[in-house]
């Protein structure tokens, strides 16, 4: 690792790695000592799966600018293919194979869907992807091998915190590295202005499909993780509402911000957790919060910026400044 003019300790990549490892270690210790019970771990898994889904949808919608409402469809492909494998091949090899197959199957469907539909723009693309996800759901609901509406039960469970963390880290790293690569830059150019990008010689269809495939693959992995943590899957789980929920996380966190998606998934997951004892009022409060937050912060939590130490320091300084100003006014 050679970074000009900086020691390793100052390099951004190194700091991120250390940060990630610290988060990993803290949660691992809390889990190992029993301070975080199964229930909190289940919440962490839900949040983690949502992080993967949100980051991958952000790649498609936030960075490449392609409005997709069918992410749950890819997720269901991943979940079902993984379940087929884990129900037949036992142990960790089955688990890893299941995740790989789940991701690849979703990516394959991503190609099949993406190639014809990605020439559509905006809301027309959204409705086409929505239709695709619904078709997948209806097929799963009506064929024998998926056990129809009853879904698959008693799936073997493998996901623990190290695995979960590994896959989240891998998906985030894959997405970030893609965005920093030349195809990734091309995707961002397409979001900014498709015609200008095309005029600059970017093969827009190719890069749109590439982003779509990566997004679909990651969604498939998320689905596979779902099917290896929760004991049951059924077609209804991956309905239109699931796609909408993922989109809500992405926009809430900030379109075009990876850390925003991560933060969005965490914040919404925690809100949902705290609200769960309000039973019938829960969804009303959730909806109300969503509307209020969007009205007051339409660009989402992070906008298109990334959370970094520098940003946090600036925000801290800003707050301190406000505080000092208040203090001064108080004295006068």
């Amino acid at each position, binding site marked *: 690792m050679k970074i000009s003019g900086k020691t390793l300790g100052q390099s951004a990549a190194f700091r991120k790695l250390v940060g990630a490892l610290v988060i990993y270690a803290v949660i691992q210790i809390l889990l190992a000592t029993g301070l975080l019970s199964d229930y909190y771990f289940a919440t962490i898994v839900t949040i983690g799966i949502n992080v993967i889904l949100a980051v991958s949808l952000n790649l498609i919608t936030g960075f490449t600018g392609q409005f997709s409402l069918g992410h749950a469809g890819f997720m269901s492909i991943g979940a079902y293919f993984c379940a087929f494998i884990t129900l037949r091949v036992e142990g960790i090899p089955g688990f890893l194979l299941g995740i790989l197959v789940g991701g690849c199957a979703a990516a394959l469907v991503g190609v099949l869907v993406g190639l014809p539909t990605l020439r559509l723009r905006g809301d027309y693309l959204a409705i086409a992807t929505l239709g695709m996800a619904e078709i997948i759901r209806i097929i799963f609901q009506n064929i024998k091998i998926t056990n129809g509406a009853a879904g698959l039960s008693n799936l073997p469970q493998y996901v623990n915190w190290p695995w979960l963390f590994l896959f989240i880290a891998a998906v985030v790293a894959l997405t970030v590295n893609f965005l920093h690569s030349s195809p990734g830059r091309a995707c961002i150019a397409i979001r900014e202005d498709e015609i200008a990008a095309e005029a600059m010689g970017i093969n827009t269809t190719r890069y749109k499909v590439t982003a779509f495939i990566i997004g679909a693959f990651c969604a498939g992995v998320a689905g596979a993780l779902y099917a290896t943590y929760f004991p049951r899957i059924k077609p209804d789980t991956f309905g239109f509402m699931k796609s909408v929920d993922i989109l809500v996380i992405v926009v*809430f966190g900030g379109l075009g911000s990876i850390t925003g998606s991560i933060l969005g998934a965490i914040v919404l997951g925690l809100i949902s957790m705290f609200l769960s004892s309000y039973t019938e009022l829960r969804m*009303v409060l959730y*909806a*109300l919060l969503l509307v209020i937050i969007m009205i007051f912060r339409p660009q989402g939590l992070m906008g298109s910026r990334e959370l970094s130490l520098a940003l946090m320091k600036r925000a801290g300084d800003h707050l301190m400044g406000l505080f000092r100003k208040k203090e001064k006014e108080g004295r006068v």
Partner: protein
Amino acid sequence: MEQFLQQVVNGLSLGSIYALIALGYTMVYGIIKLINFAHCDVYMIGAYVGYACMTFLHLGFVASLCISMLVCMVLGVIIEKVAYKPLRNAARIAVLITAIGVSYLLEYGMMYFVKANVRTYPEKTGILAMTFQLGNINISMLQILIVAITVVLMIALQLIVKKTRIGKAMRATSQDQDAAELMGINVNTTISFTFALGSALAGAAGVLVGIYYNSIDPLMGFLPGLKAFVAAVFGGIGIIPGAMIGGYFIGIVETFVSGYGGSMYKDAIVFAILILVLIIKPSGLLGKSTREKV
């Protein structure tokens, strides 16, 4: 042959309902380019208002329909003023999420207050309960009424948009909001008016569905809303006759698919046709393909 004709009747009455909801979607989309997810819940509220009028106030069909349209109109304007107006200059997708939030709020708010179980409209009486027999084909008065009301409302809407001052303002706003404002058009009023019209149509659809199918519940808007939206896109979103054609097309396709052995896959086939149409004609059936200028 008789079965075929009966299926046409079935399809037309189903399609009318989709068309009526799709009109509201398409108008709002036409003017502020927003997929108003809350629209299908306004339709649900309309059904409940009609239910309350008929069950508790013992009002007749026409009175209930009018009250319901009025309430929905007010509700639509309030939603627009409170939830969408502050976001006029925000990214379109942020408004979309707000719309989803409003939709959840209406659904689960209703579920909290009236509970999740289905409600049934009081029994139909008089002219509404009549059915006609043409050979072996059954046509009920309600089916005729639904088709008639839909067509009348659509024509009225088309006249408003094409012939009146406010209609002209709507068209101008939909083309270019800033330019319209510069020309002295009150954009806010125009947008509110559009919401009022669209929501009133949703209210009418709600009461008609309530009385025709005799079953309403807080989540009743979800699927018809989705299909109506598909209908609007199919016909070319933002175009009033397009929504109408889309609604009828989807109603009839759905009816024929399930009538001739494909009941399992009827929704899948509707979506497959939609995707095909979009691939062949990316801006819907009646949509103009606009060339983007650099």
